């Protein structure tokens, strides 16, 4: 699916680019203007524990890790109708799950990832924009390609916008050997894929009010586990001869269908030079997860050249139907789905944060450069907390 949608996207992109080149030959001579470069560095430091991790004296192992995440965004215009964007995030993750069941790769101890995410927008008429997305993701234990197409139509003198998009993802797991080597003889590769279809609508309600609503579903198929997660095994007390291991790998159904609806209300208040943003998301899937997420943000301009942002987010979810703290052997079928992953358990999550944003151009000039500095604290009721520090810079050309 992803392969065919990738080919289709590439074909459409080529056709659109050629058409743009033919009909705007004059513009393409001057062509290619670089419009924006942005960079962001985010650092996460996480602490907590979960039953899927072996890194601890008890059944709950440590989930301590650090993530360094530099990312770049580059935007260029090919001509009046065609615009390109490249997003390049890099993740460097330490101790994804120390001492976990995968003694085989270093993915659980140190994991580096790189994503190249291209987007091309083609203006097909005064009210219509087609977009194409394509890219790849490289990670120690798997490779991934993705592609997508989208279409956006503006109505009522651009007061309303309707959009649809479809994305496909295809992952290949790189199998690993007993000493961390890749592609050892005798190992098979696992695969998984996802198809994602979305529809959204936005509407200007007044000179200061905007609303947006969206719906999307994602169908995933293939091997969905996290290889380094494990499930504790209890021994049946009446038995004198216990199974020789105290943990087994997690096991998932091979298909998952996710639905999500999202609503956003953005309200600007000119009298106080502030903006209030409220969003709500409802999520449901066939693993029996139901989740509600509410977020509120207040942007307050301190001067025309700087604003502060305060935000709060609350998330509530129930567990997947096969979540367990431990399984008991014998009696539990090792073919049955199981996970002890704390991310898939029932919990509440809260996040509070703040950000300072400043235009750094000299007074009297266009505001083309900005800096921002942010911090947020994320914590869950099942023993996980993350401190997030971020620094961003953007420049328009």
């Amino acid at each position, binding site marked *: 699916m992803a392969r065919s949608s990738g080919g289709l996207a590439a074909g459409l992109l080529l056709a659109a680019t050629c058409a743009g080149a033919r009909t705007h030959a004059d513009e393409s001579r001057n062509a290619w203007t670089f419009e924006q470069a942005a960079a*962001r560095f985010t650092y996460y430091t996480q602490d907590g524990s979960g039953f899927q991790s072996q890194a601890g004296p008890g059944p709950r192992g440590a989930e301590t890790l650090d993530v360094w995440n530099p990312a770049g965004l580059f935007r260029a215009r090919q001509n009046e109708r065609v615009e390109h964007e490249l997003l390049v995030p890099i993740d460097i993750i330490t101790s994804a799950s120390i001492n976990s069941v995968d003694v085989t790769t270093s993915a659980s101890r140190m994991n580096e990832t790189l994503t190249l995410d291209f987007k091309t927008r083609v203006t097909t008429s005064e009210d219509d924009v087609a977009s194409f997305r394509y890219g790849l993701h490289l990670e120690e234990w798997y490779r991934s390609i993705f592609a997508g197409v989208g279409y956006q139509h503006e109505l009522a003198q651009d*007061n309303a916008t309707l959009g649809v998009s479809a994305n496909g993802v295809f992952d290949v797991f790189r199998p690993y050997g007993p000493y961390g080597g890749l592609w050892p003889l005798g190992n098979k590769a696992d695969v998984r894929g996802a198809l994602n279809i979305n529809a959204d609508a936005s509407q200007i309600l007044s000179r200061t009010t905007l609303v*947006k609503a969206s719906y999307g579903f994602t169908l995933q198929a293939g091997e969905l586990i996290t290889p380094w997660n494990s499930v504790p095994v209890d021994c049946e007390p009446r038995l004198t001869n216990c199974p020789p291991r105290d943990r087994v790998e997690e096991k998932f159904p091979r298909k998952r269908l996710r639905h999500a609806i999202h*609503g956003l209300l953005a309200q600007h208040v000119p009298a106080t030079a502030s903006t209030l943003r409220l969003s709500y998301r409802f999520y449901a899937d066939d693993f029996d997860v139901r989740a509600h*997420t509410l977020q509120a943000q207040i942007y307050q301009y301190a001067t025309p050249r700087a604003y502060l942002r305060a935000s709060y987010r609350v998330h509530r979810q129930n567990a997947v139907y096969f979540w367990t703290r431990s399984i008991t052997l014998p009696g539990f079928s090792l073919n049955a789905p199981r996970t002890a992953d704390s991310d*898939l358990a029932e919990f509440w*999550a809260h996040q509070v944060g703040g950000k300072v944003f400043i235009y750094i151009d000299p007074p009297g000039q266009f505001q083309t450069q900005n800096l921002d500095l942010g911090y947020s604290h994320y914590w869950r009721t099942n023993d996980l907390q993350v401190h997030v520090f*971020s620094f961003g810079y953007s420049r328009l050309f």
Partner: protein
Amino acid sequence: MKRVVFGVIAACLFSACVTVSAYERGYLSDPTMQPVVDPLEARAERQLHRAREAAGGGDASVAGGGCGCTN
């Protein structure tokens, strides 16, 4: 919950009769009023939540690797 969703949909439909001209959209063009204020920050936030919650995907983003931990 149904009333809230219905209210938002009704507000959108009824307000569609109101047209805000291009020259009246000064406040709406403020960066804080855009559907996505900062794509890089939005991506980082999405990763934070998608890797720690079971409810990732289903939205307009590429749905990631798709494993149970929602990489």
